[in-house]
């Protein structure tokens, strides 16, 4: 007895549909994985500057690199400032999303506010560092990605020339 040709034909058609769905799924997953692996956030060396001699406020620049094939949007950037490893302050302003086109990078200036008054006076002598994370949304990828951001700034005394 030979197999029914219509059943075999239906099965083969289902197989073609399955092959297309499988290849599409692998392609989508690879695209997402490549996007997630192609972003980086780093402190721009020498960009940290105190805005006042009381070490209340400061600014620093961070470079966000998007080497993926998808446009990205920097949806949130939470970053803390540390004096000798101790939490001293953070970026407290409302964040406005920034678009980062594919295969490009942007430099964002982050304002810091020192909120721990007890150690504020150590701002000029302490070893400064930053840590935090940023959240990126990619075009064609349904899930956001959180990227850790860390950087060692070093000793940065107040310089009046920075605020001229």
């Amino acid at each position, binding site marked *: *007895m030979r*197999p*029914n040709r219509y059943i*075999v034909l239906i099965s083969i058609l289902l197989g073609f549909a399955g092959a*297309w*769905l*499988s290849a599409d*799924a*692998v392609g989508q997953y690879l695209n997402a994985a490549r996007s997630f*692996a192609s972003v980086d956030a780093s402190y721009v060396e020498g960009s940290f500057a105190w805005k006042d001699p009381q070490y209340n406020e400061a600014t620093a620049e961070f470079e966000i690199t998007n080497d993926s094939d998808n446009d990205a949007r920097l949806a949130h950037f939470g970053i803390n400032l540390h004096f000798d490893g101790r939490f001293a302050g953070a970026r407290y302003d409302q964040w406005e999303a920034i678009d980062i086109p594919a295969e490009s990078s942007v430099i964002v200036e982050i304002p810091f506010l020192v909120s721990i008054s007890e150690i504020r006076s150590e701002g000029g002598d302490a070893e400064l560092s930053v840590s935090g994370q940023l959240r990126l949304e990619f075009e064609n990828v349904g899930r956001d990605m959180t990227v850790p951001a860390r950087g060692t700034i070093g000793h940065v005394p107040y310089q009046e020339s920075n605020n001229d």
Partner: protein
Amino acid sequence: MTDRTKRVIIRAGAIGLQWIGLTIALGALVMRADASYSELITPSFGAAPVFFGAMIAGFLLGLTIESPRFLAPLVILMCMVASGFVGILTYAPVVDGILIRTPALDNYVSQRVILMTLIMIMAVIPSTVAGTLLGGNLRVRQEIAPHPEDLAVDDEVPWWEQRYGSHSGTESDAETGRRPI
């Protein structure tokens, strides 16, 4: 090549193509069933279509193949291979050099493969039995009345297409001690 050999090759080829097609279709459903990938791969269906897809696949294979000795291993193999599509998806970035292979990744894949295999096997058992019981009319030759040519080659039907106990045996079988199948 004799006519019998040609017939056997065509029949086995048709069954093979059917098995491959259904396995790939099930594998695609398995790939899109994982909640972990639901935001990365769209559309994502969840596990229910895997269950019902396995039922349909088992039913279609059951309609085509009558011999349980051939059907049961094929159906189980279909479930196992389709479950392995989780591995194809998960390891694709590893092969591409984006991710590294870790024991946690291996454990995740193996547990998903086992889970999907069990879900599909539970689904295919009743549907395959139903398919093989209901498929008798579809497995007959293309005409209602048996074609004389087909009658002539009845003894040459491959063993996987023979019904258990349908052969009454011949005198020569009795002499040689061969049991009818």
